[in-house]
């Protein structure tokens, strides 16, 4: 396998982008990525989107993207793993470059979520759960994570205040991110006084509905030396694992085994341990998710995610910054784009281009993206070279 480097990243300001279509989002992110790399000659494209069909009526994004990007005839494919679709696109592009099949691959993630009503968006998202044995009974995604939150609180003593600090910390970081959908601070009190959605989770525990796209450009590390605009960043580890699709089928629902296994594989490939990692971008679709992911990654012991967050371990200036971008909560969560945007943030951090939210001495970064209730997870390790 060849070593693979990221030579371009492309993002835009995310939000409720009424004036932009799904094709506009894809092209804008890709062009921004080409500009960042100083190259637009690509061999192949991988598109990650969870539900373009349900959300916009448009499937066959693997045809739409090259066509509207002015890359007619370039091969393209679409990958899907619910909210993990973005990092699946990066992983697939990585395999294409590492294997020698292609020399320059664009991985693009997108979701256009505001072309349907809130009800229809909720329906589309719920298709990531077990349709016949979870969604059938009227449970929503906040509901599924709420069940994990209740169990975590009862088993480990995790508090409402600790959950609220995840949201508050991510909003603090997001307020420093020009791409974020909600770039403003949020106090713990504001989180704890927000509307109940599914007990014990409240509105400000939940990531929002977002339109957005993100893109990265991958080449063999040997070619990366030609790209002189930025410091070099390589993908040194990739891990991917699955678990049961239904939450109730897991023997211990508080252990996110897919996350643990994906991280183990990625760290092993990179020849690192979690102690070598300087920061992480993780999938905080709900506040409880970030706490459970910290535990699953081994940043803290099981049950310690809440107290560690409240003590500032994961703050921007803490010992192990988590979600310097603002995470899904503040930056937004256009589901198919999220995994790619996590990689973009890790690249900004490793290049030292993250501005006011720059993590000090960022040399090794970890990104963790997941689908459903953690039934799929992909972890990437990125390093500054």
């Amino acid at each position, binding site marked *: 396998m060849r070593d693979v480097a990221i030579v371009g990243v492309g993002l835009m300001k995310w939000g409720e982008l009424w004036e932009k279509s799904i094709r506009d989002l894809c092209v804008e992110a890709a062009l921004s990525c080409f500009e960042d790399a100083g190259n637009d000659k690509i061999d192949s494209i991988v598109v990650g989107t969870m539900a373009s069909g349900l959300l916009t009526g448009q499937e066959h994004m693997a045809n739409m993207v090259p066509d509207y990007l002015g890359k007619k005839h370039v091969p393209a494919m679409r990958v899907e793993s619910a909210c993990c679709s973005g990092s699946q696109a990066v992983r697939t592009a990585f395999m294409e470059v590492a294997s020698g099949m292609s020399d320059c691959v664009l991985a693009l993630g997108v979701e256009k979520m505001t072309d349907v009503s809130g*009800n*229809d968006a*909720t*329906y589309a998202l*719920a298709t990531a759960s077990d349709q*016949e*044995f*979870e*969604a*059938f*009974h*009227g*449970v*929503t995604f*906040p*509901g599924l994570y*709420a*069940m*994990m939150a*209740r*169990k975590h609180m*009862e088993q480990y003593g995790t508090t409402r205040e600790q959950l609220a600090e995840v949201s508050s910390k991510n909003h603090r970081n997001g307020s420093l991110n020009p791409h974020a959908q909600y770039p403003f601070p949020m106090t713990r009190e504001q989180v704890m006084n927000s*509307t*109940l*959605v*599914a*007990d*014990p*989770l409240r509105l400000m525990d939940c990531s929002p509905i977002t339109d957005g796209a993100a893109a990265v450009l991958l080449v063999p590390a040997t070619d990366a030396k030609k790209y002189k605009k930025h410091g070099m960043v390589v993908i040194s580890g990739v891990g991917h694992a699955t678990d*049961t699709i*239904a*939450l*109730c*089928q897991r023997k211990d*629902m508080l252990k996110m085994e897919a996350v643990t296994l994906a991280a183990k594989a990625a760290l092993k490939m990179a020849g690192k341990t979690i102690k070598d990692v300087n920061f992480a971008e993780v999938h905080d679709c709900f506040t409880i998710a970030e706490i459970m992911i910290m535990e699953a990654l081994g940043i803290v012991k099981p049950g310690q995610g809440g107290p560690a967050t409240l003590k500032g371990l994961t703050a921007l200036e803490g010992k192990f910054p988590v979600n310097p971008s603002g995470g899904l909560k503040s930056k937004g969560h256009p589901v198919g784009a999220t995994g790619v945007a996590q990689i973009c943030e890790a690249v900004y951090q490793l290049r030292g281009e993250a501005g006011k939210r720059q993590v000090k001495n960022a040399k090794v970064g970890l990104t963790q993206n997941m689908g459903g209730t953690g039934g799929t997870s992909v972890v990437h390790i990125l390093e500054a070279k």
Partner: protein
Amino acid sequence: MSIPRHWREIPRRYRLEAGKCKKCKVINFPSRLVCPECGGKTFETVKLSGKGKLDTFTIIRVAPEGFGDEVPYAVGIIDLKDGVRLMAQITDCDPTTLKTGDKLVAKFRKVQEDGKNGIIKYGYKFVPDVGV
């Protein structure tokens, strides 16, 4: 939802039928073609007791389409005596009084309907087990 899509789940939704692996004896609900525990491929159909304890739950305040009239309603994970865990609504009680560990029993109830003219989908819900 198409009629066959609901119809084919009737053994599970109406009668709580599960698949007991002939090799490792683990009961799978829903039944599967491959046992996740041992890889076995032969099963005996068994009916679940429908009795168990509440493992965790939530109260849905913002409902998906079709459930809006029911809020607030409880959905939880129930540990059945048969060693099976499943997710269902918990009804016939004030959801705010529920506690994990509560004894529950399955009942046959209407779960949802396809608008005004579509089929009515019945299935299991759980209620507090008061021994009657």
